[in-house]
């Protein structure tokens, strides 16, 4: 018999909504938070497009209450991450960071997406020393300093606007000649006197790795190829996200960009495994769509489990031990 009927991996809006719904369906879900617990909303400030909060709500506060709501109906939350999954056998087997294993009849993957870095190695080398993917975490360190924001979408504009609280000047470096951001965010950014734009350009290098801190960036104009050096103290990268699917490579169908492929709602190509939120969505990527697909995954999992009797000792047939036992992490 499996340890659990259903396990949810991930604790953003998708994961917590999946947990809420499966908990209310008496499936006693286990939710494994993951390293970036609470998901991307933990890195935001005011969320103004979550329906029901007419004056907005702080991202971290929203995640705190969402989690409490899931727990109220019987979700067990584990503060750990999954280091390995085995989806070839049933029940599915997950290995946690501390080495424990858990088996489950159904699995909901809501591992989300993480901020993407530039495709140059100088940005990662200076992470924590002036290069950041989290304005709300690190903006404070740039009080009275000039900085750059890389990207042209909503997140980039939100970061740029937020950072004007601290920085003397915020230079937005964008690959195109117009913003991808929504009209309302564009208007806010254009109206801010501290925000300046460098169009048709990418960051070729972040300086200065040998000094161990950011002293400037080298910007390449994509039309002319011209390189320009810009002295500044910080670089905030907001060029999108990469789905967190490394764990599932080779076991679940992924698209060329690494997103989990879902069909008929939230079904993956492995029966009993469902995916919700940004890990399977590169189009909408909103808190509310993530939560919506989390609900769908819960309902899909519920239907799937209707046909899998709870007390069936599936593993006896496979001759495989399934009790949660400590084993060394690989």
């Amino acid at each position, binding site marked *: 018999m499996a340890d659990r009927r259903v396990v949810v991996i991930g604790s953003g809006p998708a994961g917590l909504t999946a947990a809420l719904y499966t908990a209310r369906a008496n499936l006693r879900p286990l939710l494994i938070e993951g390293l970036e617990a609470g998901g991307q909303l933990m890195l935001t400030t005011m969320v103004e497009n979550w329906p029901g909060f007419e004056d907005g709500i702080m991202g971290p506060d929203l995640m705190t209450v969402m989690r409490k709501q899931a727990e109220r109906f019987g979700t067990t939350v584990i503060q750990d991450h999954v280091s390995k999954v085995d989806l070839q056998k049933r029940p599915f087997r997950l290995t946690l960071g501390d080495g424990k294993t858990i088996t489950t009849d159904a699995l909901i993957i809501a591992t989300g997406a993480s901020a993407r870095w530039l495709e140059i190695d100088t940005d990662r080398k200076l*992470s924590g*020393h002036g290069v950041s993917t989290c304005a709300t975490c690190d903006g*404070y*360190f740039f009080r009275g300093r000039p900085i750059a924001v890389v990207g042209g979408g909503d997140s980039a504009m939100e970061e740029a606007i937020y950072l004007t609280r601290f920085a003397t000047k915020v230079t937005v470096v964008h690959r195109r000649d117009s913003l991808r951001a929504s009209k309302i965010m564009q208007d806010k950014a254009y109206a801010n006197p501290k925000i300046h734009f460098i169009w048709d350009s990418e960051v070729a290098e972040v300086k200065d790795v040998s000094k161990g801190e950011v002293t400037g960036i080298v910007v390449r104009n994509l039309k002319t190829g011209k390189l320009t050096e810009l002295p500044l103290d910080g670089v905030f990268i907001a060029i999108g996200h990469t789905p967190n699917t490394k764990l599932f490579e080779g076991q679940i169908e992924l698209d060329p960009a690494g997103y989990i492929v879902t069909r008929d709602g939230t079904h993956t190509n492995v029966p009993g495994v469902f995916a919700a939120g940004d890990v399977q969505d590169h189009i909408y990527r909103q808190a509310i769509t993530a939560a919506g697909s989390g609900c769908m995954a819960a309902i899909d999992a519920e239907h799937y489990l209707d046909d899998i009797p709870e007390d069936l000792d599936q593993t006896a047939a496979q001759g495989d031990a399934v009790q949660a036992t400590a084993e060394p992490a690989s």
Partner: protein
Amino acid sequence: MASEKVKTFTDSNFDDETRQGVVLVDLWAEWCGPCRRLAPTVDALAQEFDGRATVAKLDVDENPNVPGRYAVRGIPTLLLFKDGQLVEQLVGLKAKEEIADAIQRQL
């Protein structure tokens, strides 16, 4: 909420407190979401290494000198010291095992 095993460092007691032994310092701030998520991990490490290594927190809002000295421009950042020498600097959210391994290497 922090475990009593976790000490609180400030700009003024920092040098004294890190001078001897293996010391892990968590640089954090109230407004930093990821820092809040790392807090239970730091608590757990304080328990795990009780008596073998010191685990402490330093609020960067109230103590700007220490983050300045180590060119810290992002939090959470974990600074690991051995007998007053900085031996490792871990930026961002890290798994408990990874931090524990870093401490273990210095023991």
